[in-house]
């Protein structure tokens, strides 16, 4: 889904059209969580296939404005009639300010939509997000498109594409003509920029993995690991490691000296082996340390069990003592 190569074009910025802004390439990282949120919003809102669904992207922007990290998204209602589009400005503002309270470091990055191609309305919406407070201004806004329908309107695996928009042509100034204010909509050119879907914390990744796994195996999801003797997670992880060691060993059997990748692999392995600490060679010492460690753990286990029993004992004794008192009275 992520593009490995991309062309980078120097483009004009929003605030100073004509002058080139950053010269570094842009890059969008989309958190899997945010992506799933977007898909959920899309899935829940798509009543008719012509209805346009848009929403605001939230997250971090790097200091130079070239890196984006999409962390969350929320829906913004909009109404499309012919050539014009009405975006619920107020709802956007309220949702953003509520989100901002709990996530003070994050800001509006841009917006997402689900259209098949860039059209006139895309520019209108982009204009909304490119200026005004509580939006992406003064930074350029990004536009994330999720396409989940093919030419025949069949639902397909959602495809993500990201764009950065920049103004072209004369800046619209909103001059007054009589009583009417001429609409001040700029024109935009959309450059595709590379994106990649990533996971935030390890715990989040683990959660996502188990979602994937449960979906594949069609098993119900459980997240409770509180059972004392439930070491299934540990077992699963060990099995994965064993499997990848087997894979590596198998690969080394059919080793090709002329293959650069194989050579690289071999180098990494040798480096890893030679960099192991000296203490690993002293077996007796190691055994001693392990023995001591095991004893520590067993001690903790023993004491914890004692505490557990004590608590139970105390509860039972109190109950018995009190009921005896009642009998005596």
């Amino acid at each position, binding site marked *: 889904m992520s593009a490995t190569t991309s062309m980078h074009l120097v483009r004009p910025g929003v605030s100073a059209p004509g002058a080139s802004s950053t010269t570094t390439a842009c890059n969008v990282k989309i958190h899997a969580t945010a992506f799933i949120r977007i898909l959920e919003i899309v899935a829940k809102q798509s009543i008719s296939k012509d209805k346009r669904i848009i929403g605001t992207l939230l997250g971090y922007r790097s200091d130079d404005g070239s890196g984006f990290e999409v962390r969350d998204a929320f829906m913004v209602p909009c109404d499309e009639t012919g050539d014009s589009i009405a975006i619920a400005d107020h709802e956007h503002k309220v949702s953003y300010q509520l989100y901002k309270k709990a996530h003070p470091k994050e800001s509006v990055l841009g917006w997402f939509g689900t259209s098949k191609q860039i059209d006139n309305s895309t520019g209108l919406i982009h204009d909304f997000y490119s200026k005004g407070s509580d939006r992406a201004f003064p930074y350029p806004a990004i536009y994330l498109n999720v396409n989940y329908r093919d030419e025949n309107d069949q639902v397909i695996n959602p495809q993500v594409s990201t764009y950065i928009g920049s103004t072209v042509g004369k800046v619209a100034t909103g001059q007054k003509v009589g009583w009417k204010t001429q609409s001040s909509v700029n024109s935009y050119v959309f450059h595709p920029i590379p994106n990649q879907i990533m996971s935030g914390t390890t*715990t989040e990744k683990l959660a996502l993995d188990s979602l994937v796994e449960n979906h594949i195996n069609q098993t119900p999801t459980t997240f409770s690991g509180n059972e004392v003797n439930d070491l299934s997670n540990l077992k699963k992880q060990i099995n994965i490691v064993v499997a990848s060691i087997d894979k590596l060993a198998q690969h080394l059997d059919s080793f090709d000296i002329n293959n650069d990748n194989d050579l690289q692999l071999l180098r990494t392995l040798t480096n890893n082996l030679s960099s192991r600490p000296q203490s690993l060679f002293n077996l007796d010492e190691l055994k001693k340390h392990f023995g001591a460690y095991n004893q520590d753990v067993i001690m903790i286990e023993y004491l914890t069990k004692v505490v557990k029993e004590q608590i139970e004992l105390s509860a039972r004794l109190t109950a018995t003592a009190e009921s005896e008192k009642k009998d005596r009275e």
Partner: protein
Amino acid sequence: MASKSKQYQEPTATSIGIDSGALLSLVRHTSENYPSLYSGPLFGFEDDNGSVDISHIYPYPYPDQYEGGSLRSRSGAKYQQEILDSLKTLDYGVEFQGWFQSTLSGSFITSQLVESLAQQQLTNKNAFILVHNMSSIGKELDLKAVRLTRNFVTTYVEGKWKSKDLETNRLSYLNIFEEIPITINNQALVNLYLASETDTPKSTNEFDILNLSSNHNLTAKLLESLSGQIDSYNFDQTNFNYYQRMYSKENLKILQWKQNRRLENLERSKAGQKELDTNEWQSLFKLPAEPSRYNNMLHSSAIDNLADDLLKKCNEELTKSFAIEGKFANE
């Protein structure tokens, strides 16, 4: 509303459904901000099949000082209402269903949290709390939905926490909470995406559980919380022990008095005099009242949970350690 009219109602929800996006953003927020603790409201609706479906999860803006601290705070309630209003204007037909709380093992059992949950359950019979246990952060996900049992809420409504009440309601520290199974609700589009994600590369971080954590501070943290809980438990227990000593002292006095009275009556009957009342002691002595067992129960339950998590950690460590040691023996 008078508190008298509030009665325990049997909850009708048998499972909790959570949208995968909501779940992931919850997990990210709590694990990113660890060791700060966070809580927040859960929004969703009850469906007709006995399940509460959660579609939106928002953290409160500020971290919690302790578990349950923000659940009924004024600022938290205001924030919650604002979000609900905003969701309503976006045409999401959702209601407040409960809270989530990130915690370290059994530490979530605080009187504040239990109190909030009890009050909420009396208002909405299907209220629950989603507890994210951070004791295995980065290694495994431990999330469960719990609510208070009938036994607990009934005792709570009665408001007396004497041993007798615990016995009549069959309540012990082991059955304060009951767990509700969690299911994940995926939209079809999300499923499509998940199906394409089977081959994602794994990072070494995900195998953190396999590292021998000899100098890891998580076990230390658990032990610290455990000893903290034991201290609070002991503090409470001292009060109880004092009561028991006072009780037996008073009881002894009463017995002596009864003995004396009986001897006196014996002499009086011999002398042909009228016998004195043998129940007069009730106005002379007063047996001390039993202190509330409420805190004792909460502490016991917290200790029990902490101990279980610790034991699990130890089991894992020993498994790993022996696996490595076995390799030495082979060499």
